[in-house]
């Protein structure tokens, strides 16, 4: 049964809010307080606007709005269905939290070019919301590229050699894969199917039955690698390289705007362009799951070796993103549900972890885990939140990550893939191995001799409150997962 399609302009409003916010920030850049007021007000309005769409979508309706027609069946059009809402809700709520956090961080460190920073931050969210509400592959590609371009100034923010190098790597990886794989895939899909629209359910896909199978498999592989923001190895190098950015950016990049755009696009295309039926018929699912398993394990092992906290978090992200793709690639209902809900769960947990890393840097100017021994005693809230968010990453109850992991495990059993089950369990152990020592050492290890923690106290409240909120949400959606699971269940039907 196809859902009702309701034409509405509220989607355009939601999309324009961050754009208008960015323009406002640029115009009022000279007035620090006004500028930040614009950022925070637009983030709140966006959250409310997206929130107002929830009841309609939960009723099973699809909100739709066509903006431009480029060619026949190539349009810039927006849609809000259950899957878009998953990402839109995460992006808008995390933007709100991140705006408040970055005010504290940027002022705390007295960073330069804060206007540009705030404007690009809003533009990145503009792109992310656009991706979430894309009704077709072209619109998605458009906003995907907007995110790439608008986050470059954030990565290169420090404008030193390291910043430029990281920024270049970032842009090279993301645009090269998009141009080399995504562009031909998109055009070829258009030639084969006559449209770039997404299907209305996850099973049918868009390909006619008589299409050349080799070509479809090639297009699938192109799409998988084309969205390099999903961090699948071997195209993941941009992500650790982007760590030179200020921490709120890393938080935004690695929890929401960039990497989630990548996995959201990948899974959207897997489910709504190719469709579960085509993927099963061509046997694309399980090989994908095994392929990304390598990323899950390898990235976790690399994370173990990193002493720099942000680098460890970056590799953890690489690994966790592949969970999402793995879940969807299992093509079983619990698997898809587990994968998609992990977009939410990983988002809230990872942003907490990065916020904590930033708070530690602002309060104690420490980047390396080995230097944080005993620091938990002077910064209990920060490290407490870090510990709870780590549990979510590991997948321990009652934090949100457990819900994902449970579904993924059930999904792998239903797909009769013991190998995948083993990968998930092994990766859980690895997660525990690289996350738990951070909290343990902070609280229970003795500070190194000569280290004076006397002057160090918790980071300013504007940073601490977002940490606590993000962490609390992680716990709440762990204990009451039903609200978000509604959307995920609506996706799988």
């Amino acid at each position, binding site marked *: 049964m196809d859902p009702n399609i309701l034409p509405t302009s509220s989607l355009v409003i939601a999309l324009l809010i961050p754009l208008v916010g960015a323009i406002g920030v640029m115009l009022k850049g000279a007035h620090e307080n006004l500028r930040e007021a614009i950022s925070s007000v637009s983030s709140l309005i966006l959250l409310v606007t997206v929130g107002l769409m929830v009841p309609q979508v939960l009723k099973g309706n699809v909100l739709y709005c066509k903006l*431009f*027609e*480029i*060619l026949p069946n*190539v349009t*810039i059009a927006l849609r809000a269905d259950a899957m878009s809402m998953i990402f839109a809700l995460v992006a808008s709520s995390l933007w709100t939290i991140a705006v408040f956090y970055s005010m504290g961080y940027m002022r705390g460190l007295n960073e330069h070019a804060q206007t540009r920073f705030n404007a690009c931050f809003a533009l990145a969210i503009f792109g992310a919301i656009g991706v979430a509400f894309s009704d077709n592959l*072209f619109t998605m*590609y*458009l906003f995907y*590229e907007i995110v790439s*371009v608008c986050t470059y100034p954030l990565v*290169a923010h420090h*404008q*030193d*050699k390291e910043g*430029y190098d990281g920024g*270049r790597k970032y*842009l*090279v990886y993301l*645009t*090269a894969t998009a*141009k*080399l794989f995504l*562009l*031909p895939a998109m*055009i*070829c899909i*258009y*030639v*084969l199917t006559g449209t770039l629209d997404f299907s209305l359910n996850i099973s049918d896909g868009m390909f006619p039955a008589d299409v*050349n199978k*080799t*070509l479809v498999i090639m297009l699938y592989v192109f799409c998988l690698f084309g969205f390099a923001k999903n961090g699948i190895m071997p195209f993941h190098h941009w992500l650790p390289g982007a760590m030179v950015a200020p921490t709120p950016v890393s938080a935004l990049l690695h929890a929401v705007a960039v990497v989630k755009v990548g996995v959201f696009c990948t899974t959207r295309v897997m489910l709504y362009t190719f469709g579960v039926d085509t993927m099963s018929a061509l046997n694309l699912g399980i090989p994908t799951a095994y392929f990304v398993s390598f990323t899950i394990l390898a990235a976790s092992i690399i994370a173990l070796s990193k002493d720099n906290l942000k680098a460890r978090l970056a590799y953890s992200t690489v690994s966790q993103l592949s969970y999402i793709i793995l879940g969807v690639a299992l093509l079983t209902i619990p698997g898809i549900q587990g994968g998609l809900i992990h977009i939410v769960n990983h988002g809230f947990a990872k942003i907490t972890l990065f916020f904590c890393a930033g708070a530690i840097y602002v309060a104690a100017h420490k980047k390396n885990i080995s230097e944080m021994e005993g620091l938990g005693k002077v910064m209990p809230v920060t490290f407490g939140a870090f510990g709870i968010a780590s549990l979510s990453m590991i997948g321990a109850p009652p934090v949100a990550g457990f819900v994902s992991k449970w579904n993924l495990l059930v999904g792998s059993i239903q797909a009769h893939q013991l190998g995948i089950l083993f990968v998930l369990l092994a990766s859980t152990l690895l997660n525990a191995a690289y996350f738990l020592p951070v909290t343990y050492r902070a609280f229970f290890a003795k500070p190194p001799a000569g280290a004076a923690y006397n002057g160090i106290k918790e980071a300013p409240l504007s940073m601490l409150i977002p940490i606590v909120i993000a962490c609390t949400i992680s716990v709440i959606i762990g204990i009451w997962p039903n609200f978000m699971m509604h959307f995920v269940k609506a996706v799988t039907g």
Partner: protein
Amino acid sequence: MDQHLVFSSFPILSTLIFLPLVAALIMLFVNSERYCKYISLCFTSVVAVLSLVLIVGFDTETTKFQFAEKAVWISSLDINYVVGIDGISILLVVMTALIMPFCILASWSYIKLRVKAFLICLMVMETAMIGVFVALDFILFYVLWEAMLIPMYLIIGIWGGPRKIYASVKFFLYTLAGSILLLVAIIWLYWQNEYSFFIPDMMWHHYALGSQILVFIAFFLAFAIKVPMFPFHTWLPAAHVEAPTAGSVILASILLKMGTYGFLRFALPIVPDATYQLMPFVLWLSIAGIIYGGFTALAQNDMKKLIAYSSVGHMGFVTLGIFILNKQGIEGAILQMINHGVTTGALFLCVGMIYERTHSRELSMAAGVGKYMPIFVTFLTFFSLASLGFPGTNSFVGEFMILAGTFQFDIEAGRFPWLALAAIPGALLAAAYMLRMLQRIIWGGVDNPDQSWIKDINAREIVILAPFLFFVLWIGLSPGPFLDLIDASVTDLLQNLTMHRTHSLSLNLMAPY
């Protein structure tokens, strides 16, 4: 002859052709450089506005030549002054007319020496350029085609940079060499067609294949040099680099289009069987141009050279689109001709604006000007992104159509789409060199030269750039109205081609492609 033409009650095309010439004549008698500037701006603006009449009055249903006019010129040889436009030429005529006032504005403070002579050259240039696109008599076409060389030669040779003589002579010789064989082909066709130079009369005949191939080669040399296709491109970077801003804009936006226009107007309809025979050759040459242009542009430190080589790549996409001989390809190619005119023209204007400030075209000298020229770099960002085919901008639509046509070309023939995939690295390279240039200009590196004295662009310069941005976004977001104008003519062209393809197939002459 008349069955091909739809006459108009007002000689609008002649007005467009001769108004600039009238302006040039008036300026001969005006001594004040200031007045000359206003006169030329005024006349080109009138031409630009009048050209919009063509869009309004254009009938998108018919495939005949519209707004036609006819007058006897040399009756003994049956050479006539016949002009008219169809879907293939209308956008090029209008683009030419619209770009000229901005060329005048861009030269407002750039040209300091012999301003009057410069403006007269531009006016003569405009007459010749519009004439080339509307001429329907082959001799008229040829005369105007050659006539363009003289003012362009002067523009580069007098107002150019340090190596202006080298560049202008090279430009002149290359283009002239190409067009000599064209004249031979024209005379052969004249003789074959019962002594008529009327272009539509020459189309869709079944000339012998051997002769067709020879005529195609003559056409190809003339037009491939003009496009320029790899490996006939070497005159272009020299000419672009040395030419003043207005000259570069005219070269890139309009002159290059004459080559691809020539393919569409002459090569395809007059020698269709040869076109089918030689198309694989032209297609792979286009791919070579796309890749070669991209790599060479990536290595440039001179901004004008960078954009010049990017033109080689972009025009490779256009010839690719033309020679896959399907609807999406050809329509995409025509649209891409306009797109390239808009974006590359705008980019040359941007480089000119930097040059007026730093007196250097070196990328390293412009590194980091973004900090002091925020309005300028906002424009530049849009134009660079448009040039690399960013979705939502004009070039994306053209590139998308051409590549879709290329995929279709292979898939319909049941082949793996090697040809389309071979062109994709070109899109990647475009992103690479454009983003590199953009990054250098906006951000630079850790050792930027001191540019704190640089002033952002003024109102005149904003007025110059804004219309280009308008077209970048309009074509990018809603190309429908533009495609409607060209649709009927392209469909007709392809129908005729398909008939010839069947004919060639029945003769069993098809190469593997």
